[in-house]
């Protein structure tokens, strides 16, 4: 009898919580980072306990969003490392490692944001700008393709996006005078299927937004280091592009500098541009538009619209009609000193005197922007869009700089000394950008977010806390100190009737569940 009740209970739990995977960087192709699991909820969140820890022992920042399929978790780490872990114990099943070329230059650490998966094949970029396909059962290399020459200043950190039978990747290196692009590779062979240049060349559409008869466009930046999203119905890929180069010196590149600091919508088969939207024309503050472009539906003027949301680094939240790139709404979510507002065509109404100068000029938001690349979350349950924000300003400097191939080419820098920026997690109505709540943090945030049907927003902070906020109110309901900065986005999955929540912190991966 006792046995029966145990079985019944187990069956009940099982039926409530079917096995759920996490197969894409952003959980679904729309980039929601929403888990429909609700076993962990306000009635029991206090009982959340550590299930296992996996120590990568890889120095450097851990930015991975783990993937989970069958009984294995797949994570990538810095410096070309990756691991397959047993889901039940966190024990290593295989490890992939490849030496990083000694002469490689990367702006922001030899990091990696995770795998993409198609069938039994895993895809990741290596930091020296290659794309590698691994057999998920063994970690063996199936193929490796050079995306571009790292000696020119290119590097790769992005988690790829699988679109049908292709693997789409972006590139980094806008601080090294490179010309950015988005590439698609045949998943079976690793052969390049198409390339979209994010800096328009002479004679191409947008080419007139760069100075004529100069090499400026070749060094024009526009890197694409955060994973895009895909709408299968429209067959469009949405991908954000980074700052123009050199970052702080706009004098050598008069014009709007298309398609930097933009969102581009590309045909899912050919990579041809369907439309683009430029958030920051002629950027001089390093405000990449490499934030999650999240696909969601909003009601706009009484009509349901397929939208794409982005909390842009320039301090404004934007909702666009994702069928045509038209602006639906734009609203500042943090202190903004450089633009009064965004006009109805999506162009910022500038406030003069905000550009970098040789002796330094303070502008807000700071160089990392308001919201940066950190994973964001959308909950269809609350209808709110969640993201982190650095709230503060930086001093921006401008210097004339000669271009040398493969070398740092930023045209000076920015600096927050003495300005003490803070941070917050913001929940906005995605239709309008109106802030619904804001949880203030003691310093600029570092980690990504995930929303769950249990009614939480999970996140992590620079001081090593992993926490859950009430998705409706922003009140913290649970936290645990992990002893290492959380930079990655959390994720969730279920096995045998139990919901698990996983996040990387420091050099390790932590998995929690109810006792």
């Amino acid at each position, binding site marked *: 009898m006792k046995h029966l009740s145990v079985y019944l209970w187990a069956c009940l739990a099982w039926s409530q919580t079917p096995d759920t995977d996490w197969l894409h960087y952003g959980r679904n192709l729309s980039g929601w980072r929403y888990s429909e699991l609700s076993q962990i909820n306000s009635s029991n969140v206090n009982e959340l306990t550590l299930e296992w820890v996996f120590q990568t022992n890889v120095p450097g920042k851990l930015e991975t969003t783990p993937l989970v399929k069958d009984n294995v978790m797949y994570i990538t780490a810095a410096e070309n490392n990756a691991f397959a872990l047993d889901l039940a114990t966190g024990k290593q099943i295989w490890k992939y490692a490849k030496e990083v070329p000694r002469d490689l230059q990367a702006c922001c650490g030899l990091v990696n944001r995770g795998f993409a998966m198609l069938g039994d094949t895993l895809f990741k970029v290596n930091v020296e700008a290659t794309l590698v396909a691994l057999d998920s059962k063994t970690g063996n290399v199936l193929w490796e393709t050079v995306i571009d020459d790292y000696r020119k200043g290119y590097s790769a950190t992005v988690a790829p996006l699988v679109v049908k039978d292709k693997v789409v990747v972006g590139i980094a290196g806008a601080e090294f005078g490179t010309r950015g692009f988005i590439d698609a590779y045949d998943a079976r062979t690793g052969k390049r299927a198409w390339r979209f240049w994010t800096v328009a060349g002479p004679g191409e559409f947008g080419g007139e937004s760069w100075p004529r008869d100069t090499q400026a466009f070749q060094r024009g930046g526009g890197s694409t280091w955060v994973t895009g999203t895909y709408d299968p119905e429209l067959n469009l890929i949405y991908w954000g592009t980074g700052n123009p180069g050199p970052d702080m010196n706009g004098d050598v590149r008069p014009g709007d500098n298309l398609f930097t600091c933009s969102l581009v919508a590309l045909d899912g088969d050919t990579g041809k541009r369907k439309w683009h939207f430029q958030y920051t024309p002629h950027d001089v503050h390093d405000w990449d538009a490499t934030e999650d472009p999240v696909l969601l539906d909003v009601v706009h003027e009484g009509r349901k619209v397929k939208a794409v949301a982005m909390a842009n680094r320039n301090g404004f939240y934007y909702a666009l009609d994702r069928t045509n790139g038209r602006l639906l709404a734009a609203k500042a979510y943090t202190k903004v000193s450089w633009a009064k507002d965004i006009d109805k065509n999506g162009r910022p109404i500038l406030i003069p005197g905000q550009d970098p100068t040789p002796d330094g000029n303070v502008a807000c938001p700071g160089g990392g922007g308001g919201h940066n690349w950190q994973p964001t979350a959308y909950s269809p349950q609350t209808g709110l869009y969640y993201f982190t924000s650095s709230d503060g300003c930086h001093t921006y400097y401008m210097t*004339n700089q000669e271009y040398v191939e493969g070398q740092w080419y930023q045209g000076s*820098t920015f600096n927050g*000394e*003495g300005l*003490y920026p803070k941070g917050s997690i913001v929940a906005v109505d995605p239709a309008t950008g109106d802030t619904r709540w804001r949880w203030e943090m*003691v310093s600029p945030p570092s980690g990504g977010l995930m929303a769950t049907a249990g009614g939480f927003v999970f996140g992590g902070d620079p*001081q090593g*806390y992993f926490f859950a906020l009430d998705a409706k109110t922003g009140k913290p309901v649970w936290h645990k100190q992990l002893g290492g900065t959380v930079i990655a986005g959390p994720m969730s999955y279920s096995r045998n009737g139990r919901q698990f929540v996983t996040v990387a912190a420091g050099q390790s991966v932590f998995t929690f569940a109810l006792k």
Partner: protein
Amino acid sequence: MRLFCWLLGFLLPAALVAQNPFAGNAKEIDVGRGLFRIACTPCHGIRAQGGRGPDLTLGIYNNGNKDEDLFRVIQNGVPGTEMPGYTRFGDDNSWRLVAYIRSLTLRQEKPSQGSAAAGETLFWGKGACGQCHKVGGRGGPMGPDLTRVGRKRSLAYLRQSVVDPNADLTPGFFKITVVTKERRTISGVQRNFDNFSTQFMTVDGKLHSFQREELNSCEREFTSLMPPYRNLSEAELNDLLAYLVSLRGEVAQ
């Protein structure tokens, strides 16, 4: 013969580069500053006071204190560390960088005129600095340890630290104020301040630790708990500074 050529190849440049052609040349220093902003600030900070790389404004370097040592580090980097080599900048630009780095450290070279012995007396006596600062094993633990402060900081910085502590705070030594549920207000110097808890030290050397939910309020101010010493005579101040400059880590710990 081949060996000879190799040796010559090594020795000749070394023999040629002993002197900085741009030392003290304001115009060249300015060019050096521009170069530094572009290439070096990501690691050494906009004011060369350090970050991922060490503070370069101290005039004391692990890799040698002579101009040619700095030149060598800039050219070759420090193997096995993040410090890259910049041979591609060419000799002139490396010398400009050396001249710029020197211009940051030179300001402090003028020795302080006071008496270190008198300063020591003032420090532990009338100034009551030892209430909050340790030198060697002696003194209170709330403020920064000053055992090596003469190596770490410039004279100008030290002077400012004493007369106007808020002008440039020692990183991390911020003021925390909490109000407990019993309405007791406690202020101290930050040891940790995060989204869920805070730890800080009061002037009596006591460490306090609170979870935010135990408190009515919990604030951090970017101000110093050190009182400004504006009433010292110029002579007293010079004595005190002479003492601080003499603190070079050689005191028994």
